């Protein structure tokens, strides 16, 4: 899976005018040695820190949320790793890409 395209999820079939998409990939390690994490859980927290949704990552470590416009936190849980938080801003008509390194 090394060398998978960053943010490689297809947006076919998604009407971006009505969606504020947050998506990305969970990787263990950094740089050329980074490996996608296919058994992580990614949680979406709203601007007050309240849980909104959770998805397991795909085999390639990818995840996607259909959020509303605004500030969100992406929290990643994975085996043998501390939880990792990343702030992200979503807007209608765009895709916010998040890379999470654990």
């Amino acid at each position: 899976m090394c060398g998978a395209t960053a943010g490689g999820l297809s947006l076919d079939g998604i009407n971006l005018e009505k969606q504020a998409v947050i998506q990305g990939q969970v990787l263990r390690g950094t740089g050329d040695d980074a490996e996608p994490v296919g058994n992580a859980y990614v949680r979406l927290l709203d601007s007050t820190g309240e849980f909104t949704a959770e998805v397991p990552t795909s085999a390639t470590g990818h995840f996607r949320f259909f959020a509303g416009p605004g500030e969100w936190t992406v929290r990643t849980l994975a085996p043998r790793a501390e939880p990792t938080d990343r702030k992200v801003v979503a807007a209608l008509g765009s895709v916010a890409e998040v890379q999470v390194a654990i």
Partner: protein
Amino acid sequence: MSRENVLVSTQWVEEHLDDPNVVVIEVDEDTSAYDKGHIRNAIKLDWTTDLQDQVRRDFVNKQAFEQLLSERGVANDHTVILYGGNNNGFAAYAYWYFKLYGHNDVRLMDGGRKKWELDSRELVTEVPTREKTSYVAKDQDPSIRAFRDEVVEAIGVKNLVDVRSPDEYAGRLLAPAHLPQEVAQRAGHIPTSVNVPWSKNANDDGTFKSDEELEKLYAEVGFDEDKDTIALCRIGERSSITWFVLHELLGRKNVKNYDGSWTEYGSLVGVPVVLGDEPGEA
């Protein structure tokens, strides 16, 4: 009702993988999750095909439920352990469903599939074969399932707890944020329903919070102990968790799950709907 009778740990499940009296069943929102790997000797129930009537919107009837469990090798005297992803959402839905049809000993694996994976416990792809049984279900227990007319009459009268995320409750989102938002019904919530998001019942690792924390959570929103309670979400799955917490963990009486939930209520003609973060008036 005590925790031990309705909830088991991942460690307990690992120690009972070969126990002939225990049937472990995975029920996931992502119905393909089992096929990618599951707890050894666990079987799968698909909530979209196994547990729903395929023509009208309702559960499979008593005979179909009996046939399903008989074919899958689940007997009346088995201890059924349910687990799944998303904080056990659909596992709790299946738990409520098994109780609806009167199964005696059914329990959730605390933390569900996520806790099992975060513990780095083994997942396998081999599908076990089980001997068929002759399962006999009871008639549906009407004391734990709410229908739409009862929900409309409960406005301003009973405790209505809407367990969707705050943005869904307020009408800013129509579905949980991991699903596309293109749906037909109106956004918002039922007047007088209070918002206690389902996720507040669980820790980050998916295990349930302590009884003390849960009691505090519901006391804070002003739950009236003397009133009956109806829990709802979008399709009745996340509210199964709240039903489990209130009815099975905290031992509240007269708690129902409204499986029609927002996809039904938000499509009804003429019923009141409130937008925004406040419960609103009856």
